[in-house]
């Protein structure tokens, strides 16, 4: 079997790449994609811990399913906000969206 830490290491790598994307990308759609990467890394961790430590308790899989739901909701609302901002500002660069700043 693959040791548990290998799954966790891959998930940590995906999470950190996603963090870098969230912190640096200027396009809002790209930031949203990086957030999806981070959520996905969390899901890999949840399922790996479930399989290796508590394979008879459904908590790990159930939490992963809820993460799916939250990711879907977040993507729908986030993309709707991006499209609304694009309609008003003709831009999806996050530095141009400073209406709430004074």
């Amino acid at each position: 079997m693959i040791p548990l830490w290998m799954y966790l290491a891959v998930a940590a790598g995906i999470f950190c790449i996603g963090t870098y994307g969230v912190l640096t990308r200027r396009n809002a759609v790209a930031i949203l994609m990086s957030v999806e990467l981070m959520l996905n890394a969390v899901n890999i961790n949840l399922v790996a811990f479930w399989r290796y430590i508590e394979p008879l308790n459904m908590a790990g899989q159930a939490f992963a399913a809820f993460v799916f739901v939250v990711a879907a909701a977040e993507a729908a609302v986030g993309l709707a906000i991006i499209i609304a901002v694009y309609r008003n500002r003709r831009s999806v660069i996050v530095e141009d969206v400073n209406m709430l700043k004074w």
Partner: protein
Amino acid sequence: MLEFNAQTIAFIVFALFSLGGALGVVTTRNLIHATLYLILSLFGAAGFFVLLSAPFLAAVQVLVYIGAIAILIVFAVMLTRSMTRISDLYNRQWLLSAIVAGILFVVLLAGVIVPVWGVNGTQIDRPVSDVVAGTVDLGKALVDQNQYVLPFEVASLLLTAAMIGAIVIARDDQE
């Protein structure tokens, strides 16, 4: 430490898919290509779910993430088409962010490699049992009133709220 068998090869292939896809997402200028890299990365994660004997989650990963979210992102990219080729890919703090992400990765890696998860501080090399709860058990747990029926209903409420919210936010007010 790793025996050379089909499972190991599959793990390495899926790890390359998910890590390489993730790198492509954050480094590609063209957002359509970035979305395709995102699909590759999500597909690698679905492979991990298969290896971890969670077939239902693998199917949901393909259906929801690749089938719905990635396609939604493609639509958003196309609706904001003039923005797919902006001059600067990264903002001014990219170097600082790279350092922060690198430090975070080192800390996380130390946290998972230093053996703390197993019994008596040992590294877990194999699952505690080969008997695994299946999809039927997951379905029962999600509607069992002693387990997850309340979060399940709240999740459906969240999806409804997100759907209505997305429609209201994205609607054109001029009409």
